[in-house]
């Protein structure tokens, strides 16, 4: 049985996410510590008809979709996005995690960010990293608008890197080792430099101690919540 990746699964159900970024990938709870989750489908889009699989047509002149720091070059160019852009976004995110930054973070305006994205050759962007990350980025850039990403190829790139690790079976994330784990199980918003879209996350540090201002609503499954 082939296990589908999240991206392949979402794409196979006719959607593209369009806003893959660190803030939209959530870690698991105590019940699922080894998982990550792809969250926030607020600007996801159906890219093909669910029955006929006819792909949406190409358009341009569209305002930048998603988040400036991780937006694909096509998105900068005002193009309608497709599956290839999800792969490009993910490549930027992975490279960002390894490098600790991206050359265009903090560049300020949209034009400068695009200039740096176009001007930074994949070799330089991925210098010092395993070659597979460059290959993932190049794969996304080589895809045509309606073309299906080669998920098996992407998978093989990742597996190849894992095979080179001292312990390929190590399934512990860095934060499992870290003493810097946030005390709260909730995310605080992190505004990476250059992000133009952010969710206001008004999440109290401790939910268990419910403040007096908490209002209890009579939802069908009733919830109480804070900070209204």
């Amino acid at each position, binding site marked *: 049985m082939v296990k589908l*990746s*999240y*991206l392949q*699964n*979402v794409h196979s159900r006719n*959607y593209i996410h369009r806003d893959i970024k*660190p*803030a939209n990938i*959530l*870690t*698991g*709870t105590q019940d699922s510590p080894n*998982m*990550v*989750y*792809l*969250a926030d*489908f*607020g*600007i*996801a889009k159906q890219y093909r008809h669910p029955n006929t699989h006819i792909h949406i047509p190409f358009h341009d002149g569209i305002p930048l979709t998603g988040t400036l720091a991780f937006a694909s070059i096509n998105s900068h160019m005002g193009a309608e996005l497709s599956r290839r852009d999800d792969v490009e976004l*993910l490549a930027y995110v*992975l490279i960002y*995690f*390894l490098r600790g930054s991206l050359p265009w973070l903090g560049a300020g305006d949209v034009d400068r960010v695009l200039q740096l994205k176009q001007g930074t050759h994949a070799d330089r962007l991925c210098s010092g990293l395993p070659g597979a990350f460059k290959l993932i980025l190049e794969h996304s850039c080589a895809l045509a608008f309606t073309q299906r990403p080669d*998920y098996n190829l992407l*998978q*093989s790139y*990742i597996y190849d890197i*894992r095979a080179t*690790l001292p*312990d390929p079976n*190590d*399934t512990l*994330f*860095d*934060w499992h080792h*870290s003493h*810097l784990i*946030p005390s709260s*199980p*909730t*995310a*605080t918003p*992190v505004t990476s430099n250059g992000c*133009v*879209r*952010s*969710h206001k*996350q*008004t999440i109290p540090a401790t*939910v268990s101690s419910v403040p007096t201002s908490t209002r209890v*609503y009579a*939802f*069908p*499954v009733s*919830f*109480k*919540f*804070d900070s209204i």
Partner: protein
Amino acid sequence: MFVSGDVYSGQQTNSQINVEVVIKIAKSSRDAAALIKEHQILENLHNVCGIPKALWLGCEGELHVMVLERLGPSLAARFQACEQRFSLNTVTLIATQLVS
């Protein structure tokens, strides 16, 4: 720029077990339309591994509200906590789930 609404944390109160949830609230009609669309997408992605579950969508007074299962911190928060660097092991673990 597009902002689909405010996000709050909460708890389900009529359950024996303590269910932690996230509550997304739309404050304008445009936000409400986006929220309803997002809920529809999450319904269509129901049972897909690695996608948060939508628990409820409805109106509370004039506000459109979506309730989702609450998960752990985002990778943005984890990245900050790990001093802005993840190991190759962690990055490939993340990548394995997302693309392979």
